[in-house]
């Protein structure tokens, strides 16, 4: 296994682009092929044959890089309140400091977020798989709150973009105060002067920073 710190920033950058292309369908940036050759990624065994497809090992390294990058963005945006655009830039720097152990700690602290501030999924780490939603988490899904409890919306983690959009277009945004009214038979919460009912599946995707 290659240790994170042995990858250069340039390598990490191009691996992330290849992964996004292969896994999420983003277009390849111009000049990708040249960079792959220049950095000798074929020789390192991360890219297959002479094409641009990642090998199994390359996929894994890239996946972890993406995970660190998006966790860094999440950390900056949610906890530091850094604007999205800057978060992106700082994240590029920060992700290199997130060695594997630290990334796990950050992920746990954030309550195992599933998407970055741009709405792209964060690949799961070992900690997410183990996490049986710890009670002490500062940030937890809406349906883990007690009825009557209040908090601030930390972020929305809906894998289907349409559902995420539904919250946003109704004017329910990260940073807004939210109060849980009840959990059964459906989840009811209050936001501003309105009440909303959602099913449990949607409620698990609203992450709330609890007042504690």
């Amino acid at each position, binding site marked *: 296994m290659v240790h994170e710190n042995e990858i250069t920033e340039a390598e990490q950058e191009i691996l992330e682009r290849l992964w996004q292309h292969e896994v*999420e369908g983003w277009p390849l940036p111009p000049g990708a092929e040249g960079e792959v050759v220049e950095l000798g990624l074929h020789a390192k065994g991360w890219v297959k044959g002479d094409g641009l497809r990642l090998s199994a090992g390359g996929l894994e390294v890239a996946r972890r890089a993406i995970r660190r990058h998006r966790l860094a963005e999440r950390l900056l945006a949610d906890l530091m309140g850094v604007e999205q655009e800057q978060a992106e830039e700082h994240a590029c720097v920060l992700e290199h400091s997130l060695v594997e152990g630290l990334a796990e700690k950050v992920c746990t602290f954030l309550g195992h977020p599933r998407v970055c501030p741009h709405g792209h999924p964060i690949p799961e780490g070992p900690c997410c798989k183990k996490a049986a939603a710890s009670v002490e988490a500062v940030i937890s899904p809406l349906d883990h709150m007690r009825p009557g409890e209040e908090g601030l919306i930390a972020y929305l983690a809906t894998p289907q973009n349409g559902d995420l*959009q539904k919250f946003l277009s109704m004017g329910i945004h990260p940073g807004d105060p939210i109060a849980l009214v009840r959990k059964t*038979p459906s989840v009811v919460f209050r936001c501003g002067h309105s009440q909303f009912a959602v099913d449990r599946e949607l409620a698990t995707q609203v992450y709330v920073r609890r007042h504690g």
Partner: protein
Amino acid sequence: MALTLPQGCHGQAQAPLTGGEGRRKVFLVGNPNVGKSVLFNALTGSYAVVSNYPGTTVEVSRGSAELGDGSWEVIDTPGMYSLRTITEEERVSRDLILRDEGTIVHVVDAKNLPRMLPLTLELCMMGRPLVLALNLMDEAAQAGVKVDTRALSVELGIPVVEMVATRGKGIQELKTILAGPIPLPPSPKVSFPPRLEESLEALRPRISGDAWRFWALHALEGDAPALERTGLPDELLRTLRTRAGLGPRRGAPSALVAKSFHASAQRVLAGAYKDGTRGKVALQERLDRLLLNPWTGFPILAVIVYVGLYQFVGVFGGGTVVDFLETTVFGHYVNPYVEALFAHLVPWMWLRTLFVGDYGIFTLGLRYAIAIILPIVGTFFLAFSVLEDSGYLPRLAMMLDRIFKAIGLNGRAVIPLVLGFGCDTMATMTTRILETKRERVIATFLLALAIPCSAQIGLLLALLAGHPAALALWAAIVAGVFLMAGTLMARLLPGRKPAFFMELPPLRMPVLKNVWSKTVSRMGWYFLEVFPLFIVASVMIWVGQITGIFPKVVEAIVPLVKALGLPSQTAVAILFGFFRRDYGAAGLFDLRHSGVMNGVQLLVATVTLTLFLPCIAQFLIMRKERGWKVTLLMSGVILFIAFGVGWGLNAVLVAAKVTL
């Protein structure tokens, strides 16, 4: 009510007084359940259905209003949360305002201004005459919310009107503003992330007009009207979209953009909106808790069904009123008079039967429509309107969501399904509030198959009166078919599982005037829709009899009827059932009075007729909403299930030697 016009518009262009050819238009736009339809009624004097349920306006209402020196067309649009849309109702509204010209009135719920102002900013970007109507000011005052209307107007650069539309406050002010010249809104100060700004800037030379930012943004997000208007190449948009960080997929509304609008709206409101502190738990809120708690909510539902549906609609509407109209009004006055009249007017017996015969237009068509169907449907619509305006239905949706998930729907389907107990045809139209095509297909099918409308329920109760065991069996069988058909469809139809998300509007005391005009409007719609069918059915049956076709068709159905174990006379009722299920049931009603049928036969006949397609009107609406292919397929399946269940039921009951 305060009225504020924007100050110091920096030499902005004024909207042209005459809007080119044709009439000038006003579009009422806004979130669901903020009072657009009330405002529409107040402006035009005509009627759009208003309720305390998000998403009731599924059709676009158009009306006329006299404003200042001329006649304007007023258009009420289905509710939408944003111009960047997800649901079909929102798309209807968006396309309507994007593809047309005219003034826009954005109606908002004043106390929830922070949630609604982002849409105002989106509308400002369009660069069309815009007025912000702060409705529900009374509820805002109650919640301790303070809005500085003048500051808001200055900040946005558009006229802002305070309003309580249900009580007519602020309507006159709005009319005055609409009649005068309205300054075009300045481009709102919405700042997008720098990378998105760069992409927008890159499109600037390719888009004409002042609202280029608006069209560029919508083109980047892949909205059809913006793509048509700008004609930008797909490849370029793809590149720019990626560069802006909007994600690779086209047509997915972006969280980035929503966030930018939200942030800008909060900045605009900083000096103009002050939130109130929530006071003590009011009576209203305590009642709300009881409704949302399943332990108290379901008993309350049972009481509502018993009092509202059984006692009011069944016993009062279907019993007392029907008896009075049937026996007293028609039996003693109308029928003898009409018969005497036609005996005098029309000497030819064959022609006279068209009007006053066994199936005559007056003696059958008019009598069924007015004396039997109308009281039942009318009392149902009255009860439904009270429930609708109180805000109870969204709470019911919340309670039933889990059960509905099992049949491939979600809580939102409460409104079409409950409305179906009034009129399935009207309910099929409201399936549009469901988000996915899959849900709309399932709901349409279940309405057609297993939700008996109020007219049918009334007749079935009368038919099975005195056979309580048969009534219980009927209910169990129909409910069973409903659940089984739903579960099967949920498994068979592909598509993602629907997510349930619904705003719960505040509980409100229904206003008698609104309840009444809504009931009258629905009854009017029903009568126009249904009454002609009764006449047509009477005429067709008459023609069929005169020409000898009708008896032949009846003869052809007799074996089918016999297979169900029914007396051959019921073939006539079954044939009527094709025109309207309740028309068929009404036929059975006459048979029951003559004592031809026993309990088992009554049960088999009622179950079969309940599962039938309700009426021709429903068939036509299904075709309009779902298309020929789906409708014909559904009708075939329904016919098969109806006869299959009837046949099976008879076989079982006869084999078990059950008497009911």
